[in-house]
Each structure stands twice: as C-alpha cells, then as structure tokens.
C-alpha cells in the first residue's frame, strides 16, 4: 500500500531542509572552507538563480521568449540603489525595503510593457521586449544628472552576503512554486499548452500572460537590486542585450519549465568560468571556447535541456524512499507468511 505524506508534513520537511541548507552554507563559509573568489562566485550564482527562475516563468511556464530581462534588472538595480544611496534608512531594514522597491518598480514596468507586448507573439514579442530593454539603457545613459550617465552609480551600500542572497533565492523560488501549484499556475501552463483550448475553458489568457510577465519582472527587479548591492557599482553597459541572452541560455539549458533545471543551469554556468580558470591556468585564453563547446554538447545531446520539464520535490523523493522501504518490508512479511 502506498503512503502519501500529508501537506503539513511536506511543508515541515521542506522548511527544515531549507533551514539546514542555509545554516550549513553559512557555517562552511564562516570556517573559511572557500576562498574569496569562490564565495563571490557562490553569491553570483545566487543572483543568476533568481534571474533564471524569474525568466523561467515567462519562457518555461508561459511559453514566450522575452529578450528584455536586462532592462528589468536595470530598473530594479537603479531603483534600489537610489533608495540605498539616499540614506533614508540604514541597516537590514533598508536592504529589505530597497529590495521591495526594486521589485515593485520593475514589476510596474513589466505590467506596462506586457500590455502592448502581448498583442504580439513569437519573434515580434521578443523584439518588442528587446526594444524596451534598449530604451531603458538609453535613458540610463542620457540622463547623467540622475543616473550617473554611462559611468553609472557608484558607492552603493553593500548588504549582500551568502545568508541574505540565498534567503532571497529561497523566498523567490518558494513564491514561484506556490503560484505555479495553484489554479493561477495551472491557467498559465494551460496558456502555454494551447491558447485556444485554454480560452474555450474560460481562462482569461491575456490576464494570465500579463500576470506572469509582471511577476517575472518583479523577481528580476529583485535580482537586479541584489546584483547592485553585491557589485557596489552599476553602469548601463552591464545591462546590454547579452545579459538577457545569458539568462535565457540558463533557462533553456536547464530545461524550459523546470525550476530545478533553471537553478542548476544558473549555478553551473555562473561557476563554470571560475572552474575553468582554476583548472586551465595555462590555457586561460581558451576557457571561453571550452565554455561554448560545453553548451553546444549539452544542446546537441539534450535539446530539451538538462532536466526537460521535470521538477524536483524533496518531499516526493522522501515519500518514494519511505514507500520503497515500507512496501518492500510488507512484501517480505507476505513472503514469510
């Protein structure tokens, strides 16, 4: 007989494993197990994870390909940086409020952009989002009195550390998971699967497209804020077209529609340059070729991405282990009888 873990038990297991992960990570960093470059890469990975899971909402769950994530990241980064630099508040509270401001301002732009953007599909949708991103970048460059122009903003207060960044990663992933496992998530997925069928079921697909795009922009803005505080300096040149493509590559590589895929690919691609740099010291100039080659290999042999559309569930794995042990024990008892 199958044993199914009840929802409260699943939640307790997940919360405990999250706390364990955060405490263990913090402990390993504190005892000095990792060098400075490695710690920096781990934090960078966290930021890319937020970016990738946010983009995965639109690319993986909704089935549209935007190329303007860098624009939302810039909005979030600049909004938070303005707030932090204003010095209205200090300490952790300032960090939290800055993050929220970044999310809201980016989400607001996402909402405004999505309304005309979703009148188009496919390539045209990608182009309109790319154009938006470029407009943002131009505005940032051409208003130097406010934005610092091409040189950007400097001396942004540094709040980021492993605990802060990965707490945000966990909160973002949890929120996305909770949305996608609700009726609203099902509506978003149905839109990806078949728009006509979805409409024939009474799902307001336009509303859900805008909703998905807005929450994606909201979380991307948060990632932008974390990026800004981690770097301490931001400039429009960092939010170019290639930044959007980098994040898109992570989502596609991990498997569109798989959160664990986005997380793994983001962590993998963010740490790959550092790994190649340390392994191939004598071939340092060739590491980008190796990086590209790895991407080609994965895409050729696993076109659906590393995880396809599989999503990881720690409690489901535990449930399977318990069932296997329980069922095998029962079977043994039956055999003995």
């Amino acid at each position: 007989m199958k044993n199914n873990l009840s929802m409260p038990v699943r939640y307790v297991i997940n919360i405990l494993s999250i706390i364990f992960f955060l405490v263990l990570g913090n402990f390993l960093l504190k005892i000095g197990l990792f060098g400075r470059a490695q710690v920096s890469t781990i934090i960078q990975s966290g930021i890319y994870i937020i970016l990738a899971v946010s983009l995965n909402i639109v690319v993986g769950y909704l089935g549209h390909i935007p190329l303007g994530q860098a624009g939302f990241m810039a909005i979030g980064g600049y909004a938070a940086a303005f707030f932090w630099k204003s010095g209205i508040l200090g300490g952790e509270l300032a960090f939290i409020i800055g993050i929220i401001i970044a999310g809201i301002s980016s989400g607001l732009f996402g909402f405004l952009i999505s309304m005309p953007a979703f009148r188009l599909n496919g390539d045209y949708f990608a182009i309109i989002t790319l154009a938006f991103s470029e407009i943002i970048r131009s505005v940032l460059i051409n208003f130097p009195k406010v934005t610092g122009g091409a040189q950007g903003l400097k001396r942004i207060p540094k709040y980021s550390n492993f605990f802060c960044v990965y707490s945000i990663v966990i909160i973002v992933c949890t929120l996305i998971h909770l949305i996608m496992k609700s009726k609203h998530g099902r509506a978003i997925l149905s839109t990806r699967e078949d728009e006509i069928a979805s409409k024939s079921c009474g799902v307001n697909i336009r509303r859900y497209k805008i909703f998905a795009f807005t929450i994606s922009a909201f979380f991307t803005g948060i990632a932008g804020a974390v990026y800004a505080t981690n770097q301490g300096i931001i400039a429009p040149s960092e939010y170019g077209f290639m930044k959007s493509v980098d994040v898109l590559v992570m989502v596609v590589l991990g498997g569109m529609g798989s959160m664990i895929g986005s997380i793994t690919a983001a962590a993998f691609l963010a740490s790959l340059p550092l790994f190649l740099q340390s392994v191939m010291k004598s071939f340092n100039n060739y590491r980008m070729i190796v990086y590209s080659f790895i991407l080609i290999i994965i895409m050729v042999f696993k076109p659906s991405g590393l995880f396809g559309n599989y999503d990881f569930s720690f409690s489901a794995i535990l449930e399977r282990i318990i069932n296997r042990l329980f069922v095998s024990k029962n079977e043994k008892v039956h055999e003995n009888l």
Partner: protein
Amino acid sequence: MIVRDMHKSILPKRDQNVKAVIECKGVGIDFGGLCAVNDFNILIKKEEICGLIGPNGAGKTTVFNLLTKVYTPTRGVMYLNDKNTKSMNSIEANQSGIARTFQNIRLFKNMTVIENVLVGLHNEENCGIFESIFRLSKYWRSEDLLKKRAMELLSIFGMTNVADHISSSLSYGSQRRLEIIRALATRPSILLLDEPAAGMNSSETVELMENIKKIRDSFGIAILLIEHDMNLVMGVCETIGVLNYGVLIAKGTPREIQNNPVVVEAYLGKAKE
C-alpha cells in the same frame, strides 16, 4: 427540399416549451472573398441533441468557431441563453454557457488528466492570488472542492484511475473522452462536440453514443455534434442540420434527412441523365 423555417427546431414534444439555449439568425462569415458560412439559422433547446453534418469543407467547424466566438460573424445575430453574443469573446461565451471539443484533440498535453479537468473548472471557485500564494484556508477549501468535482467528472467515463497520468500518454479514445470531460467541467448549457467519434473503433463509438445520451440526461444540457459516422448521428440525434458550401440545406429528424434528395445529392452527387 430546402427548409424554409429554420428558426423552429424539430423537437421531441417534451422540449417544445423549453426555452432556447442557442439561437442563430442569419449568421454568416466571409474570409476575404470567400463566403464560408451564409445565412445560418438554428435554434437549439434545452436537452436537445442536434447533429450537424455535411461533406468535407462544408463549413461545419467554422460554424462551431462562430458559435464559440473564435471567429466573429460578419453578419447575423446569435443568442446564447437569451443573451446577444455580439460583444462577447470566446472566454465570455464559455462563461455564458457554451463549451466545445475540437476536431483535432486539443488537450493540455504536458499536464496530467486531473489538471486538464481542473483547468476546465477554473471559473468554478473564486480563489485570489493572495489566498493562493499564502495558502490560506480559502485556498485549501477551494482546491479540495475542485479536486472532488474533477474526480466526479472523471468517474463519468471511468477515468479516475488515470487521473495522475500525463494526458498525452492516454489512448486516442481516452483523450477524446477527457476533452469532453474538460468541456463539461465548465458547466455549459450547450456542449459542442466536433467529430467526437473520430479515430474510435465500433465498440468505442457505441459506448460514446450511450455516454452522449447519459451526459444529456444527467447534466440536462443541449448537445450539438459534428460527425461523419452516420450510425452515431442517426442513433443519437433528435434533429439534424445539413450544411453544404456554408449553407444549411436541410434540417429535420434523422428519418427525414435520410430520405431528403437534396442531402443525398450533396453527399453523393447527381446521377447523369
């Protein structure tokens, strides 16, 4: 014989006093210079099973697309439960009581069977985003209710045992059945079935005939179906409309349609004299 008074459907006596679920008056659509459907008139009453037949390319699926507002008619008026559908889109049409299946199965292929039905139940319970994210008691109540209802619907076609299967892994016949269940989940007052027996073997078709009647009786809804399988159409429909080149050329009981020379000519052509 071309039917003159298209507005009056030929109904069993029991339904004569029941109000119309759907009524079309002079509906038509042009695609550029092509008149795909012209002067389409139909009136379907509650609990009526009506068939729409015609040769390939006659415009049957276009009529379905017009009724469900996938296409906006170029001319004519349509009433769905006494409401003019002029300003409705397909979502509002569904919410006003029209549901359909498709000629080429349109399931949410990467979603499970129960998730497909749950999408059909999307408008059943009003649970906001805030309640869903924070998993408030309203969310749990609504999810429990929806899942219970989904399992009830699946039990109609005996599909509860495959509820957790990915819908694309089902057999062709089961996929067709699931599409009907998903349409029923939207609580329609009229169900449009576009070739429901396509790809089914004879025993599955017989089972489908029984199920169509069962759906009509237990849900108390009208059904309009497009089908090429004449055994199914003649066996299950109370009235049949025949469409040819976008025009309704005949309408009547199965017996009348079988003996109608205009229908025979539309299907088989005219003998050389």
